[in-house]
C-alpha cells in the first residue's frame, strides 16, 4: 500500500501529471491575483489561492505550501482529487478572460509535492499541550482534518479506525490515477507526526462508544457512509455481483490486479464511473454503464462522464436490470429492459447483456448501526444533523462532519467540516478552561 503494485502503477498513471518547475512558474504568473478571489470563495476550505500561487511565482515554495496547509491540512490529496471544474477552477475569472482557467489544482500539487520532497512538517498553532481530549471515530478526511487542527492547537486526540490503514476513502476509494494510496498515506504521516494517536482495527460499537464517552471530553463522528445498496433482483446475490467500493478497494490494495471479460456497472454516479474506468484499465474487454434514467439525470460530474467516454466506457441509458442469469454457477447475462421517462419498463424491449462481472454503484447507505447508538444525536434521513458553522450535533459532546453528515460529497467538504468542528471544540475548551 505504501508502495504501488507495479501493475497498478502501470495501469493507473497520473491523470493530471505534475507540473515541471518551469511550467509551474509560467502558470503561476498567469494568475491575475484577484482581490477577494472567487476561486478562494469557491473552495470549501477557502484556501487563499492567489496567495499560494503568487508564492510559487516568487520562488517561495515553502510559504506556498504553508498557505495551503493552513487552510486545508489535506491540501496534497485535495489537489489531486478535487472536482475543480465545479470548485476553484470553475470560479476562476479567466473563464471570462481567455477561457483558460488557471490550473489551480496542479499548482497546489506542485507546492505540496515540493513540501513533501523537502520533508516539510506541519506547524503547531499552539505551542504547549492543553487540557482536552478528543476521540475521532473513523480516520477519513473529516476526522483527519479535525484531529490535525486539534493537535496543532495542543489538544490530545485519538483516532479510532476499523480498517488497518487511515485515510478512509482517500486511501481505499478514490481512483488510483488521481490519488494513489501511498500519496494519501504519506500526507497522513504528517498528522501522526503532530502527536495524533491512531488505533487501527478499532470498530466502534455501542460498547466501545460508552468507553469513549467515559475517557474523552468530546467526540467527533467522521464515519462516512456504509456499504453500497445491493442489487435487489433475482440472482443479485451471486458472487459475480460485487459492490463498487469493494471492487475499488480491492484493486487499490492490489488484491486484484486484473479484470477479464465483459463488465456491467449499474448506476451512473461518480463511483460508477470510477469503477467502470478501473475495470477497463484492469483489462476488461468491454465495460457498460447501465442506468435507468437519461444522460442529463446522471449524478456524475460532466467532466467525469467525458472522461469515461474517453476511457472507452459504453453507456446504456434508460436501461433497468431485471435478473442475473447464470450458467453452471458462472455469470452469463444480465437481463435488462428499456424503460421510459417514468422509469416504467417498455414492453418487449428486454434484452440480454452478456457479462462476466456485475459491479453495483447505486449509492451508499448510512451506517445506522452506529449512528443510532449515539444518544441525543439527531439523524435526518440517516444523516447526522449538525449546526453548520460548528459541526456540533444535538448532543453537545458530539460533533460530526463529512459524508455521514452531508450524505456523500467530496473530500474537501469533509476536510472543511472537520476543521470547523475542531475550531469549535477549541473554543469550547478555551471557554471551559479559561
Amino acid at each position, binding site marked *: 500500500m505504501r508502495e504501488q503494485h507495479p501493475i497498478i502503477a502501470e495501469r493507473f498513471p497520473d491523470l493530471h501529471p505534475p507540473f515541471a518547475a518551469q511550467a509551474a512558474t509560467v502558470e503561476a504568473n498567469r494568475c*491575475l491575483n484577484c482581490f*477577494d478571489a472567487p476561486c478562494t*470563495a469557491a*473552495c470549501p476550505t477557502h484556501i487563499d489561492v492567489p496567495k499560494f500561487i503568487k508564492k510559487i511565482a516568487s520562488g517561495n515554495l515553502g510559504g506556498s505550501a504553508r498557505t495551503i496547509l493552513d487552510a486545508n491540512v489535506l491540501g496534497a490529496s485535495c489537489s489531486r482529487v478535487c472536482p475543480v471544474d465545479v*470548485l476553484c477552477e470553475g470560479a476562476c475569472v479567466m473563464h*471570462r478572460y481567455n477561457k483558460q482557467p488557471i490550473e489551480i489544482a496542479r499548482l497546489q500539487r506542485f507546492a505540496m509535492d515540493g513540501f513533501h520532497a523537502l520533508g516539510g512538517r506541519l506547524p503547531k498553532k499552539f505551542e504547549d499541550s492543553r487540557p482536552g481530549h478528543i476521540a475521532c471515530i473513523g480516520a477519513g478526511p473529516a476526522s483527519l482534518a479535525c484531529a490535525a487542527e486539534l493537535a496543532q492547537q495542543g489538544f490530545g486526540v485519538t483516532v479510532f479506525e476499523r480498517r488497518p490503514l487511515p485515510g478512509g476513502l482517500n486511501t481505499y476509494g478514490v481512483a488510483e490515477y488521481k490519488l494513489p494510496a501511498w500519496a494519501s498515506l504519506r500526507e497522513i504521516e504528517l498528522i501522526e507526526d503532530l502527536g495524533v494517536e491512531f488505533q487501527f482495527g478499532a470498530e466502534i460499537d455501542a460498547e466501545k462508544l460508552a468507553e469513549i464517552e467515559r475517557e474523552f471530553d468530546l467526540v467527533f463522528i467522521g464515519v462516512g457512509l456504509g456499504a453500497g445498496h445491493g442489487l435487489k433482483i433475482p440472482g443479485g446475490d451471486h458472487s459475480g455481483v460485487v459492490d463498487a467500493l469493494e471492487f475499488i478497494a480491492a484493486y487499490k490494495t492490489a488484491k486484484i490486479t486484473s479484470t477479464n471479460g465483459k463488465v456491467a456497472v449499474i448506476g451512473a454516479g461518480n463511483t460508477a464511473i470510477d469503477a467502470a474506468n478501473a475495470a477497463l484499465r484492469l483489462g476488461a474487454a468491454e465495460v457498460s454503464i447501465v442506468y435507468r434514467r437519461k444522460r442529463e439525470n446522471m449524478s456524475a460530474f460532466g467532466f467525469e462522464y467525458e472522461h469515461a467516454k474517453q476511457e472507452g466506457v459504453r453507456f446504456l441509458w434508460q436501461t433497468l436490470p431485471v435478473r442475473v442469469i447464470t450458467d453452471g454457477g458462472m455469470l452469463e447475462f444480465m437481463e435488462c429492459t428499456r424503460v421510459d421517462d417514468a422509469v416504467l419498463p417498455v414492453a418487449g424491449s428486454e434484452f440480454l447483456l452478456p457479462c462476466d462481472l456485475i459491479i453495483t454503484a447505486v449509492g451508499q447507505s448510512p451506517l445506522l448501526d452506529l449512528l443510532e447508538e449515539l444518544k441525543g444525536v439527531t439523524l435526518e434521513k440517516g444523516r447526522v444533523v449538525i449546526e453548520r458553522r460548528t459541526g456540533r450535533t444535538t448532543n453537545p459532546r458530539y460533533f460530526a462532519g463529512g459524508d455521514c453528515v*452531508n450524505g456523500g460529497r467530496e473530500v474537501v467538504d469533509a476536510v472543511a467540516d472537520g476543521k470547523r468542528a475542531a475550531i469549535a471544540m477549541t473554543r469550547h475548551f478555551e471557554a471551559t478552561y479559561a
Partner: protein
Amino acid sequence: MPDLAVNFAGIASPNPFWLASAPPTNCGEQVMRAFDAGWGGAVWKTIGEQVTNTASRYSSIDWNGQRMMGLNNIELISDRPLDVNLCEIAEVKKRYPKNAVIASLMVESKREAWHRIVVQAEDAGADGLELNFGCPHGMSERGMGSAVGQVPEYTEMITSWAKEKARTPVIVKLTPNISDIRVIARAAKRGGADAVSAINTINSITGIDLDTFTPRPNVDGKSTHGGYCGPAVKPIALNMVQQVTSDPKAALPISGIGGVSTWRDAAEFFLLGCGTVQVCTAVMHYGYRIVEDMIDGLEDWMREKGFATIEDFRGLTLPHVTEWKHLNLNYKIVAHIDEAKCIGCDLCYIACWDGAHQCIHRDRVTGPVDGPVELHTVPASIEAATRATIAVTPIPRLDAHTRDGSKDKTPVERIPRVDETECVGCNLCALVCPVDECITMVEVPTGLPSETWEERARSKECAPPAMHG
C-alpha cells in the same frame, strides 16, 4: 503604398530602422545578414583602440516570467582589431551601397586621435559618424564615453574636433546619465554636430545573487555597474528625446534609441520628432528577423492614418507635450466600468482602495437583502466575510441549479461600482484592469472654462486679500 525611405541629416536610408552600435553590428558578416533581413542602416559596434572584454558581460531583469524586460551590459567597445573593422565596413558598403553604414567612434580625448579615426572611418566608406559619448562603464574610467558626454565643454570640444575633419554627417550619441540632457545636446550643437542620437545605456545594477551576494553579471566574484537598456528604458528614452526635440538650442535631427522592440515603439519615437530609430536589445533577444514586422506594422498603420512618408507624422506629438503648469485644472474625467466586459477580478477595487481614493465599491447585491446594504465596506471585511461563508461542492444530483452556465457571466456582486462624485480621474483602475477597454475614463463636463495652474496662481496674485470679520 507608404514610402519608408528617409534622409537623416544627409544620410539616405531605405527605411528608418537602424541597428544600434552594439553586438548585432559587431562584424561585416552580421551587418550584411541584417541588411538582408531588411534593416535600413547599421551603426557599427564602436571602433577605436582594441579592448579586452570580460566574461560574463550581461545581466537582465525578468518580469512575471517574461525574459529581458531590461538588459544590462558591462561590455566595452569593439574587441576586434581596428583595421579588421575598417576593412569590413568597406566590404559591406561595397556590397550594400543603398544601406546606411554609420561608424561609431570612440578614442582617447586627443585631437589627433579623433582626426585620425574620422579619416579612417570615412575612407572605409562610412556614410556617417556617430560619436560615442555615452558608454557608462569601463571606457568612462579612462576618460572616454560618458566621461565626455557628461561634461558639456568636452562634448562641444570633441565634437568640433571631429567636425574639423569630417566630410560625412556627425551624430553625437547622448548619455542619459546626466541630470539635464538638453545641456549636453546644446553643447553638441554648438560643437557643430549634424545630429544627435539618444539614449545610450543607463547606469544600473540589475540584481544580486541571493546565494553569493554578488551582483550580476558576475566576473570572478565581482561585478560593476553596467548600462541598462531594453523595453524597460523606453519611457526614459522617450522623455529625453522629447526634451531635446523641444529645446530650440538643442534641436537637431535625432535618432531615437532605447527599448524599441516593435513598430509601435518606433512610431512613438517618430511622433516625438525622431528621424530614425536604433535597436539593440530586441535584436539581441530575437534576432534580425524582427524588422519584418517593424516595417510591415508601420506601413499598415501609416496606410490606415493616410501617411505617405515618415515626414508626414514626424513630431506630431510635440505640440501635445507641455509643462505641468499649462495643464487644464478644470478638466474632469471619471472611471467607467463596462459591465459586459468586467470579469470580476476586483483588482480595480483594491487598487482604488489601497492605491488611490477609495471610491470604487463592492456594494452591489443581486437579490433582496435582509436589512440595510453596507456601503463602502473596507477590503478586510470583504475578505473576512468570504472566509466566513460555508461553501460546498455543488454536486449535480443536489445542486444542479448552482453553477453550470455561470462561468461566462460575472456575478453582479463582483462587478465593482465607481462612485463618480469621489473619483479623481487618476486612471489607476483603468491601468490595472486586465480587460482591454473595460474601464474607460469618461469626460464629465464641468461647465468651467479651462484654467491652468499658472493662470490660477496669477489670478490669486491679483485677487484682493481675503476680508476678515
